[in-house]
């Protein structure tokens, strides 16, 4: 087993990072990541990533919210305490709609956020890349590529070579 977490390389500009990501992707690595201070346009494609799964959570949340609203108001009017108010029907989807609509949005928002946290494995207050002294600039103005040691194709020399050729600077190994 390799005791290091992986290899990190720095890039100064977004075009450099973008083309380096394409090269790492084409070299067939799978356990790697780019660290950027802001989402770089088109980087998902350059890294060969699939579309995010967050919308599935949102859809589930929205449907749950709508059914909760309709179901709750129907249960109240039809079963829990049927009460005639102004000669109106005990239940109608018309008057239940505004509340169900708001609950759709409320549940969608919560599902989206918790789905995002779940997929991103947050909160994760410790991560090996955070220990690196250069990490402070990953949230400021510099861009990094990290290739992890548990990648099946991991080979320190080949990776250093690949990253250096792609324009990476300050290439170092990260402790795990």
């Amino acid at each position: 087993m390799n005791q290091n977490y992986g290899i990190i390389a720095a890039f100064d500009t977004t075009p450099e990072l973008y083309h380096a990501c394409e090269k790492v992707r084409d070299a067939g690595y799978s356990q790697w990541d780019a660290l950027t201070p802001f989402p770089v346009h088109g980087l998902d494609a350059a890294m060969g990533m699939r579309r995010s799964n967050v919308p599935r959570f949102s859809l589930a949340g929205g449907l749950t919210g709508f059914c909760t609203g309709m179901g709750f108001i129907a249960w109240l009017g039809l079963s829990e305490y049927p009460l005639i108010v102004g000669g109106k029907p005990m239940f109608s989807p018309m008057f239940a709609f505004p509340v169900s609509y708001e609950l759709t949005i409320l549940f969608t928002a919560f599902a989206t956020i918790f789905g995002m946290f779940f997929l991103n494995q947050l909160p994760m207050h410790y991560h090996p890349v955070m220990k690196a002294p250069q990490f402070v600039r990953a949230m400021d103005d510099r861009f990094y590529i990290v290739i992890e040691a548990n990648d099946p194709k991991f080979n320190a020399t080949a990776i250093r070579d690949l990253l250096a050729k792609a324009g990476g600077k300050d290439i170092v190994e990260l402790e795990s």
Partner: protein
Amino acid sequence: MGAHASDTPAPAILAEVNPAAVPRPVLVAHHRDFHWITEKICGLVEGKTPVWWWWCFGAAAFVASFTVAGLTYLVSTGVGVWGHANPVNWAWDIVNFVFWIGIGHAGTLISAILCLLRQKWRTSINRPAEAMTIFAVVCAAIFPVFHVGRIWFAVLPGWLFPFPNSNGIWQNFRSPLEWDVFAVSTYGTVSVLFWYIGLIPDLGTLRDRFTSAGNVFKARIYGFFAMGWRGSNRQWSNYEMAYLILAGVSTPLVLSVHTIVSFDFAVSLIPGWHTTIFPPYFVAGAIFSGFGMVLTLMLPLRAIYRLDDLITQYHIDCMCKIILATGTMVGYAYSMEFFIAWYGANPYEGFAFINRAFGHYAWAYWIMISCNVITPQFFWFKAVRQNTTLVWILCLFVNVGMWFERFVIIVTSLARDFLPSSWGYYSPSVVEIFTFFGTFGVFSVLFLLFIRFVPIMPMSEIKMVIPAADPHGSSKH
């Protein structure tokens, strides 16, 4: 996110038609780079608390104490301390509620609707505008919660929230007032979530800067809220999607909130309230008043913190134009209400509108017209939009005018309804005046805490819109 437009070659037709290069206004002036943005915005949080901040905070806390005193007196004595009496049983409490909730709408418009419309100029103003939304909702919520008098009854016997009373009877879900509870509480919650999600990357930046500066205490606090964000692109991908979906659901939310607020009136039978124009008219008015408040807050902030490179003249122009557009819509709605009152041939409706303009409350009506219809028309002129002092003063008039709009709608309609024998005249009590005056202090206290402890602009989003962020060279798209 699948194949991006930027990864496909430009269509061949482009060479043939040779489109003219449209000059885009710069969103960050003076070619500032990534590091400058970080230093500028983090510097405001990391620096020493300025003296003016303490003065403002003290003054705001003093003003806020009026609300605390007014509400304490209300709860200990009873809702009779407010000036409501038959026939005007709804007055300043709901006027103030609608006023504050309307102000919040501009924040959500900036963060959600302009995000979906890809208006990149929103980036530097969306964080303070969203903060404004949250604090405005806090101020708005004071009034419906406290108008029940014994506030602890708002929850358990369910005077507001859905719980049954001691006879097992639940709320009337056919009533727009109950819809409003759901609309406003959803709005407040989603606004906080949206704001917090936007903050996570910036809190990560602050965490790392405090860590490298050796300030363990602050690094822990900011780090706790940053959730361990590390700017990984695999995280950004999910984050961007979540942000887009939140913008997508906040858009129908913000439109629905003021629609439902307008249902409080439109679903009733009172002349002057019972109209179908209310939902769009209220939403336009809300955005109008909200942008007035955004500029009222943003212009002093820009001057004090020297944010001219981030909030450029272009940003101010855009906001003034939105005020102009929505103000004109509101003016159109006023005239259309009059037209329909005549065209509908309902004598009560016709009387309600004649009475608004020429009756006992005519002074309020004409303040409303001059502030909301005439004031925004000045923004047609570039010279006015470029004079920040003048813009600020005009925005104050917008704020005043929109408060009077709600006062006119609510009070004049109730004071003169169907039977002359049940007519009346409403004046606020001193307790009401103090409570409302104090909400400006509550709002200012919260906003001052925000500009002191939270990065006031979304650094990651501003970095995204400067030319250096484009991985394909800035000229391509």
